[in-house]
């Protein structure tokens, strides 16, 4: 698998600037978190949480796994982890959707790794949808941060976000491991700063 990030803005994982402007101009709906209620034993919040994040978790599971049975099993595994860790959600650090996506990503990568499988990534995996950016404020900020990265940093960060380890990325991009690590450190710092400024700008 060798990806070309440089030519196609969609394959680069970046939307055109015109879209970014439109997205940043749009009003951001505040979503009241459900996880603190889940942590306090509110069963209504459990149901709401499934409806709010079921589609997101299913979509992420389909991205990593091939068969519907695997996807279903992974969804179950992810939501159990979400229920058990609901009390750890900290709205100061990130949105609830990002917290759920983080748990999903972790469980999905663990699932693949336990089978000795490396996460795969295709150019179509890097498409950014306008709807998604409208809906998830953290995603919008992260993409804005990615735009500030150099081409090399962007490639490394995107592969890392899809679960590849630094040695795997070095192998994939034919880069020295040290270069991958420095690209990652600088790139992820830009993304984190964009997330922070996105929060303070809300």
């Amino acid at each position: 698998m060798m990806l070309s990030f440089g030519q196609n803005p969609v394959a680069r994982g970046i939307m055109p600037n015109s879209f970014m402007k439109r997205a940043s101009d749009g009003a951001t709906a505040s979503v009241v978190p459900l996880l603190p209620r889940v942590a306090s034993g509110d069963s209504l919040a459990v149901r709401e949480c499934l409806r709010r994040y079921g589609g997101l978790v299913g979509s992420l599971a389909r991205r990593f796994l091939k068969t519907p049975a695997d996807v279903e099993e992974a969804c179950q595994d992810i939501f159990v982890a979400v229920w058990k860790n609901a009390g750890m959600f900290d709205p100061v650090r990130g949105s609830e959707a990002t917290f759920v996506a983080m748990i999903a990503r972790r469980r999905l990568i663990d699932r693949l790794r336990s089978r000795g499988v490396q996460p795969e990534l295709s150019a179509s995996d890097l498409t950014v949808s306008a709807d998604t950016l409208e809906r998830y404020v953290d995603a919008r900020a992260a993409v804005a941060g990615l735009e500030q990265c150099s081409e090399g940093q962007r490639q490394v960060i995107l592969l890392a976000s899809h679960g590849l380890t630094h040695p795997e990325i070095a192998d994939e991009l034919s880069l020295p491991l040290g270069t991958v690590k420095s690209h990652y450190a600088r790139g992820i710092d830009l993304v984190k700063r964009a997330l922070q400024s996105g929060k303070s700008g809300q």
Partner: protein
Amino acid sequence: MKYEDDELAEAALLLSHVDREVPLAKALEDKLFAEGVQIASEARHTTSRLGAMEVNDAPRATRSLPRNLWAPHPAWYAAAAGVALVVHQAQIHRLTAASPVVEVAVPTFPAVLRDARGIEVARVASQDAEHILQVQNLPASQAGDRYQLWISPGPRAQAVPVGFFTCKEACANASFRLPRHPAAPELRSAWITLSRAEERSLAPGAHIVATLGN
């Protein structure tokens, strides 16, 4: 579960690549709901001598040990005595460490939170979708420790956790925006507690550092 900001940033990037979201199938949603309710209900609600609601993780089910391990043995008696002593001392510590809490209905905003000495440490105001917490003076939180704001529309049994925040250096004139909780549309009482790194307690009555009042 611990997590770093790097991992959150990677998740936010992954979020940007989410494509079509299809709601879960009804049967799967029902199955997940049943599991979720069971896990959520494992949180035990008890009332302490201070009247505070405590929510703790229920003990995990463990595999049964062979019967002969449970046979009377001097080591078990010694261990039980040790546990009883620790529990007793923890209770004494809690009773002395937590200041008496007086619930005061404060219809005017911003509401002032004061520490046990009566010194103003924070103000809280509610806006459309969030609570604005202005911290005047709170000591720096130790590594891993976090402050947590609790609010309630009435009795303390209805307290809900609003969110965590940390003070890497002493918090002076720091502002935090915390999501407004639908269960507490009216702010009647509020607390700031300190959540220790080594604990996973969700108890609104433990380690109170500031209380709404006059």
